[in-house]
Each structure stands twice: as structure tokens, then as C-alpha cells.
């Protein structure tokens, strides 16, 4: 299929939907005040903003905070437009209306080359595609925190909601004071008029309700007092005294605790179990068998009066497990199968420019390399958990989730009730990284609660269950091939990759109504390969989509996380093959991509690229765009006892307009450390269906003593905000691998590097 034909067919996900949005008027995302919780003394002005009687602002928070600081950033947008101090914004969990859906995340899933989609330079195909997917996403209204999209998505509607509220409040005050609204001033949430009249927002909230302001103008960036300035996160104090409430901290009267054991073989089942001894143990209530739910492996849960009682009993159950019907999974076999399929199949072409065939036919020399990346677990610090209570036909859920709507839907399905009968509370998330885009553990908790006579049950996985029953980052492999012209320059770049595609599998699990009978090409498989900024005249990037059967999911920065390792390592190889400096080589290929060039140069300059280093140290660089943001990282590396040791990572980022520079720096540090754990140690091996790693001793991560110093430099920008939570991850592995090459002359083409 031609690329364009496919894009258009992908856009019209289903025929019914096409008709649906064809006749529905464009819906405003401001929403009605009735969407917010009715609370005594507070007045809701739209679906986002409620004004309290003391003049403070209550914001409908529709995104989950898993550490990325989104509660702070979104509060800042609202505080800015309303001219209130950040401390005067309180949060209330947003409801289920489609205005809270994530449009930017879906638009971001389109497979457009970023240079064709740059703000102000979008091609017509890009504009049409984004418009259509935007329409669909608005109609679907899927509330998800992922794809580094929260600020990008909220940027217009949230500021618009706050500015509209502000305008209504001003009109109400003007009417009450009988003065023109244009003569009113607002400072720190207090309105004043030169006549001496003053009052805070709370005094005019009732008058403002129902008003439709004549004109709403967003503040000019020159007048911003909050956006772009480092703000202290309001959630930090509660995270220093133990009072922050995560999923596992939910406590309800009479609560029971459940511990899960799933078949150790992925996709396996329970053949038989003997629970007599386990149920006789003190503090044990019952055993509940768990079928496969939303992609989980089947197993059982034991309910007890504490997590410990439940876990001890779960371990005491004697079980015979059975392999999945299709046979046992094995990563060695999968690796071989990937190589076979990569060779045998043509794959789907994600990008084509010029003629690679011609360039290769007339090449002086062909440079080839094979790259690979293993399966990876997420290992959030807070293991999977969910608390559920089912009483009088109503379901109540407390869960750390990135997808509240999907969680609610699976709960309703499992309990056999309408989705309206499910009340869901999103707690703080003890890490997400994409693992909490899954709802398997929600389905399990509901399954258990159904058998607990109205009592609330908190279901918690052990660390071992968490590691051995993840939805893993898929193993991918790639063949890289460059043709060198007679002029000694790179004439063409061909990249062919193979590996499982995540999005269709995730849709099957969580959004079955939208999963089609055949897989659409999935951008996440080729992102980081098809979308390179370099001006190679001839390019061809394709991906062979496989189905190996291992449960796979979105892992922080998704396809970029391994593809950037493939592409930026190979670009480094080309620099070495043509005997050029890695920065100069890249810079020469970025004449048509000035934003990338600026980021590359900023990182090189701040890292003092080319200056002498202590003996035994070397630098490596990598440049990569993901989620709309461009990041370059320079890693300084040495070898200690033969193992790589990263001392310092200098990051430069262009993420468009910055809301909170403090959070940007935090996320650069976070992405670097997360990616370094994966680059050095991360791998999941499966033998006879069983994941071999189980807890931190066998799935090691970077600790403080070996953490590099991370420095962040931001390129000033007035573009719309782009992603921050993930873009620091992709460049890290290639920067470290390139530094190791500079140090040792050895090129490592497989992750992890310290294996």
C-alpha cells in the first residue's frame, strides 16, 4: 500500500466514526460547569475552573502525575491566565467527559516526518491528517497520560478555560460596581478599580456563572509572570513527610488485602491447585482464581487481613501450571526468528526519499551493520496495585493509572455493570513509564472484590510478579546500510527493522472496540528511524511487523528508546568511516534542519566538545527528536574494572515554550538515569516461557554512587510546548555507546552495553 493511501485509511479508523464526526459540530473543550464536582460554596464556571468562596481556584485535573510534574505545569497555565498565585490553585480529579480526552497524544501518533510537520511549515498532508485525527480524538475523548503530550494538549484549552473564567469574573465585577470591565485590574486574584473598590474572585463567582464573556484574549507572553519561570512543585512537601497518597496507601474501613500469583510462564494457565493448607493459615480469607484479564497471564489471588498474610498463603498454594497453548516463549528463539523475518519480508515503508537502489548500485562502498535491543521491564517503584469495592451494584476503584477511562471500562466489564456505575479515583502514581497504560491489575482487583461481600480489597503485586508479568518493551533488530559515493560522502541510508508492534496489541487489550481485524502500520515501530533530520539525499526506512507473542507495551519513549540507539550509533559509525568528527559530521547534514543544528551545537559547546579529558575518559554525542522535542546529549565515559562508567551527561533541549524550567531539568535528569539503567544493564530473558529476571538483584538499575552528573541547557523558543517526560531517554544509549567507541575503538551494536 502507498504511504498516503494508508495514512488516509488509518485516519478513518472505522466507517461509523467517519459518519459520526462528519455530522457532529466541532465541540468546544471548555465544557459546562456541571462537569465539575458540585461542592458547597464553590462555583464552577466551566468544565475546568471552579471558584471557591475564598477566591481560590479549583482546577479539574485530568492528567496523572507519575513524577513528571504535570499537576504543577497545568496549574501554572491556569494561574497565569487568572492572575492568581500558584499556591491558590487546588486540584480536583476531572470526571469522565470527553473534553478531558487527550487529543495531542493521538495526533502525535501520526507517522509524519517531523521536518514536514514543523510549526509554520506543515505540508497539506500533515495539516489534513492532524485535523482529521484531532477530530476523531476529540470525539473519542480518551483520557490518557502518555506520549509526553499533556502540556501540548492542554496548552490551548486550559489557558482558554482560565481566560474565559477570568473574563466572566471581570464582567460580573464590572456589573456589580457599575464600571467598565476594561477599567478593572487583577493582581494575585484580587480585582480592583481606581475608585477604590476591591474584591477577590470568590465575591463575583456567582455573578460570573452563566455569563458568556464578549471577548476572551489570552495573555501575551511578554506579560507572563509564571510560565517560563522555575516554579517549586506544590506536591514536594507531601513527598518528604510520608503523607503523599499513592495507590498502595489507600485505606478504607474493613479493607482486605490480596496477593497475586500468575502462571510463571507468560500466557500460561492454572491446571490444578491445592489451596487447603494455604487457606488454613491464620489471617487468610479466601482464594480467587483469576482468568486472563486485559492481557494478563492467568493465576489466582489470595485474600487476607494484611498483604503479608495474603502473600504467605499465596506462596503456600500448590499449583500445577500449564504452558500457553501456542507453546513456550523463548527469547533466544525469538531473536533467531526476528533475524529470519527481517531477511525474508519486505516490511512496510515508513519513509522514502530519492532512490536508495540507484545510490547503492553506483556506490563505491557499502557500509552495513546489524543492531539489536532486548525486551525490557518498566520496574516502577510502586508495584502494580488497585483497590476495589463492589457494593449494591456499584463499583468503586482507587488506582494509580495513566488511563482512568480504560480502567473504568475494564472494571465495568468485569463486574458486569454499566460504566456509569463505576466511580474511579486516581491516586498519585509511584512511577508510570507506560506500565500504567495497562489495566490488567484493575480487572484483577475487581474480579477479587466481586467475591468479597462488599468489602474493599487492595490487590498488590509482589516485585517478582511485577517483573515477570510486565508488558515489556519489545525486542527489535535492525539492518543498517549506507552507500558511499565516489565523493567519499554518504549517498544513501537504508534502514530495515523488525519487531512486534505495540499499538495494535494495546488496543486489543484496552480498547477492543477500536482494534481492527488487521494491524495498521504502527508508527511507534519505526519512530527514531524513519524520521531522521539528516539530509541524506536517498533514504528508505521500512519495518517488518512481527507477532512473537510476548506481552509488550509502551516503555518510556517507546520505539525511540531503541531506534535512537540504532540510528545514532550508525550515524556515528558513518562519521568514523569517513574520518570526520561526530559533531562536524552531523552538523554538515543539518543545513535543512536548523533547530536540530542549534541543539547539537549547544550540547557540544556546553560539554566543551573537543577539549582534553582526563586519561581514560572519552565523550560521545547523540541527537534525537521525539515527542516534538529535540535533545542532544554528550556523555563522558570511562571504564572501571572493564565496565562502562558514565561520569557526566550534558543535555541540550528544544521543547518549544517551556512552562516550568525546573521540571524540564528534572525530566532530563530522570530520562538520563532511566535510560542509563537500560543501556548498561537492562534485559529481560525468557526461557521455557518464564521470565528469568525477577527482582532488583537480577534486574539491576543505576544507583546513586554510579549516577552521572546531568546538566540541562534549554534552547529558548516561542513555539508551542512539546514533550518533556520522554525525550531525554532516546539519545542516552547511543551517546554512551559512541563514547565507548571513542574510548576503545570497539563498536557495540547490541544492548545492554555492560552485559
Amino acid at each position: 500500500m502507498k504511504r498516503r493511501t494508508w495514512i488516509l485509511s488509518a485516519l478513518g479508523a472505522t466507517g461509523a466514526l467517519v459518519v459520526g464526526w462528519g455530522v457532529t459540530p466541532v465541540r468546544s473543550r471548555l465544557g459546562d460547569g456541571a462537569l465539575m464536582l458540585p461542592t458547597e460554596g464553590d462555583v464552577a464556571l466551566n468544565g475546568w475552573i471552579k471558584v471557591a468562596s475564598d477566591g481560590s481556584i479549583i482546577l479539574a485535573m485530568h492528567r496523572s502525575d507519575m513524577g513528571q510534574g504535570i499537576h504543577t505545569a497545568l496549574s501554572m497555565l491556569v494561574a497565569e491566565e487568572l492572575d492568581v498565585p500558584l499556591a491558590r490553585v487546588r486540584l480536583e480529579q476531572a470526571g469522565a467527559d470527553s473534553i478531558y480526552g487527550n487529543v495531542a497524544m493521538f495526533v502525535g501518533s501520526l507517522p509524519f516526518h517531523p521536518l514536514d510537520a514543523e510549526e509554520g511549515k506543515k505540508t497539506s498532508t500533515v495539516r489534513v491528517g492532524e485535523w482529521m485525527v484531532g477530530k476523531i480524538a476529540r470525539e473519542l475523548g480518551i483520557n490518557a497520560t502518555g506520549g509526553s503530550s499533556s502540556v501540548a494538549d492542554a496548552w490551548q484549552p486550559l489557558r482558554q478555560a482560565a481566560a474565559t473564567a477570568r473574563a466572566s469574573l471581570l464582567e460580573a465585577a464590572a456589573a456589580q460596581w457599575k464600571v467598565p470591565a476594561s477599567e478593572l485590574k487583577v493582581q494575585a486574584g484580587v480585582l480592583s478599580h481606581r475608585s477604590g473598590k476591591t474584591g477577590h474572585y470568590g465575591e463575583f463567582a456567582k455573578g460570573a456563572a452563566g455569563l458568556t464573556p464578549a471577548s476572551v484574549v489570552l495573555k501575551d507572553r511578554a506579560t507572563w509572570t509564571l510560565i517560563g519561570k522555575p516554579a517549586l512543585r506544590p506536591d514536594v512537601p507531601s513527598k518528604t513527610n510520608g503523607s503523599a497518597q499513592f495507590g498502595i496507601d489507600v485505606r478504607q474501613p474493613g479493607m482486605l488485602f490480596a496477593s497475586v500469583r500468575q502462571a510463571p510462564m507468560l500466557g500460561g494457565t492454572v491446571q490444578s491447585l491445592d489451596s487447603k493448607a494455604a487457606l488454613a493459615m491464620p489471617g487468610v480469607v479466601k482464594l480467587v482464581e483469576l482468568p486472563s484479564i486485559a492481557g494478563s497471564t492467568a493465576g489466582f489471588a489470595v485474600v487476607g487481613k494484611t498483604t503479608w498474610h495474603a502473600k504467605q498463603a499465596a506462596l503456600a498454594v500448590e499449583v500445577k501450571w500449564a504452558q500457553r497453548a501456542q507453546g513456550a516463549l523463548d527469547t533466544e528463539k525469538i531473536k533467531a526468528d526476528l533475524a529470519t523475518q527481517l531477511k525474508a519480508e519486505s516490511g512496510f515503508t515508513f519513509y522514502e526519499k530519492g532512490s536508495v537502489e540507484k545510490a547503492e548500485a553506483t556506490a563505491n562502498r557499502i557500509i552495513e551493520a546489524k543492531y539489536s535491543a532486548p525486551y525490557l521491564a518498566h520496574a516502577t517503584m510502586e508495584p502494580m496495585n488497585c483497590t476495589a469495592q463492589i457494593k449494591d451494584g456499584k463499583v468503586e476503584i482507587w488506582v494509580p493509572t495513566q488511563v482512568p477511562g480504560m480502567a473504568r471500562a475494564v472494571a465495568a466489564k468485569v463486574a458486569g455493570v454499566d460504566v456509569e456505575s463505576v466511580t474511579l479515583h486516581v491516586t498519585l502514581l509511584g512511577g508510570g513509564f507506560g506500565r500504567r497504560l495497562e489495566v490488567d491489575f484493575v480487572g484483577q482487583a475487581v474480579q477479587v472484590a466481586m467475591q468479597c461481600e462488599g468489602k474493599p480489597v487492595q490487590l498488590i503485586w509482589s516485585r517478582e510478579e511485577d517483573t515477570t508479568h510486565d508488558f515489556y518493551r519489545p525486542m527489535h533488530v535492525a539492518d543498517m546500510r549506507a552507500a558511499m559515493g565516489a565523493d567519499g560522502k554518504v549517498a544513501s541510508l537504508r534502514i530495515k527493522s523488525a519487531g512486534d508492534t505495540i499499538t495494535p496489541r494495546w488496543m486489543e487489550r484496552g480498547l477492543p472496540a477500536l482494534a481492527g481485524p488487521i494491524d495498521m502500520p504502527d508508527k511507534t515501530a519505526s519512530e527514531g528511524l524513519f524520521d531522521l533530520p539528516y539530509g541524506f539525499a536517498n533514504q528508505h526506512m521500512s519495518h517488518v511487523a512481527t507477532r512473537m507473542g510476548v506481552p509488550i507495551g509502551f516503555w518510556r519513549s517507546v520505539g525511540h528508546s531503541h531506534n535512537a540507539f540504532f540510528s545514532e550509533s550508525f550515524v556515528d559509525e558513518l562519521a568514523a568511516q569517513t574520518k570526520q568528527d561526530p559533531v562536524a559530521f552531523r552538523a554538515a547534514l543539518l543545513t535543512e534542519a536548523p533547530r536540530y543544528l542549534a541543539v547539537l551545537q549547544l550540547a557540544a559547546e556546553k560539554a566543551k566538545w573537543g577539549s582534553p579529558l582526563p586519561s581514560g575518559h572519552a565523550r560521545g554525542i547523540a541527537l534525537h527528536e521525539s515527542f516534538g522535542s529535540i535533545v542532544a546529549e554528550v556523555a563522558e565515559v570511562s571504564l572501571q574494572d572493564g565496565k562502562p562508567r558514565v561520569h557526566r551527561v550534558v543535555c541540550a533541549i528544544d521543547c518549544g515554550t517551556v512552562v516550568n524550567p525546573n521540571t524540564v531539568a528534572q525530566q532530563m535528569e530522570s530520562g538520563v538515569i532511566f535510560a542509563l539503567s537500560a543501556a548498561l544493564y537492562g534485559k529481560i530473558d525468557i526461557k521455557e516461557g518464564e521470565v528469568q529476571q525477577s527482582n532488583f538483584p537480577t534486574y539491576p538499575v543505576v544507583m546513586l554512587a554510579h549516577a552521572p552528573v546531568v546538566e540541562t541547557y534549554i534552547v529558548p523558543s516561542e513555539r508551542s510546548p512539546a514533550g518533556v517526560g520522554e525525550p531525554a531517554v532516546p539519545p542516552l544509549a547511543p551517546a554512551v555507546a559512541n563514547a565507548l567507541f571513542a574510548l576503545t575503538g570497539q563498536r557495540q551494536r547490541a544492548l545492554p552495553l555492560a552485559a
Partner: protein
Amino acid sequence: MELNINGQSVTTEVDPNMPLLWVLRDELNMTGTKFGCGVAACGACTVHINGQAVRSCVMPVSAVAGAKIRTIESLGSPNQQHALQAAWIAEQVPQCGYCQSGMLMAAAALLERKPKPTDADIDEAMTNICRCGTYQRVRAAIHRAAATTAATSGVTA
């Protein structure tokens, strides 16, 4: 069983083999101390036993009967923050925050032992896992707290 938690005497009927972590969390509803790994590898469950940082997920409760148990809930108070808590806020350490109770308790035990720790001391004492990668801010905050504590107690650095 009689336990001394945060200066208060607590009587609880529990299995002596039950790890202290679960006594705190599930019997006493003191949820500030977190569960991360269950094998003393990550440090999310760190509390103080007689002033020493201990991983409560593998500590049978019977082994700490009579000992002075201190948890994150008593590290400071709203009116009187511990120097580390103030430093944690100043350095904006936490991201998701899940590991931070354990981090703070490990850091507090370190400062009690070594009021002015070196980087090497911090490397050795702070073996807690943080998946958000807050390590460099943890280090900076410990140094900051050490400096402020030294300043307020009149000790010159």
C-alpha cells in the same frame, strides 16, 4: 506485642514473623513507609531502629520489640521541618516521590552518624533505588542539610 514507634508505645497483636513493614502499613495504617521489593534491595521501606537505617521489609517485628522505631511520619513536624525536608524542598528532589520516604530516612541516619558527610560517605550510605533518577538532587540536598545543620548548631564547616 509492645512496640515503640516514634516515641509512642503501641500494643499490637501480630504474628512475630511478620515483617515490620507490613505491621506499620497494614496493621497500624502508617503508610509513609513504602513497599518496593520485599528483599531489602531497594530501600523504599527504610526506617530507623535505635538510630540505624534498617530495611523494614525483611525485619521480623519480633526482632524490634523494645527497640526505638522511627518512621518518616516523625522525621519532622509541620511546625518544625527536619533540615533534610527543607533541603529536599529547596533542591526539588522528589518526582513521583514513592522512594523518597526511604531516601530521607537513610539520609537522616547518615547525618546522625556523620553530620558533614563527604560524597564518598553519601555514595556508601545511599543505596536506595529511585527510578525517577533523583540521585544528584538527593546528594545536593544532603550536603545542603548538612550545611544548614552545621550553621544552626554553630559548628563551622
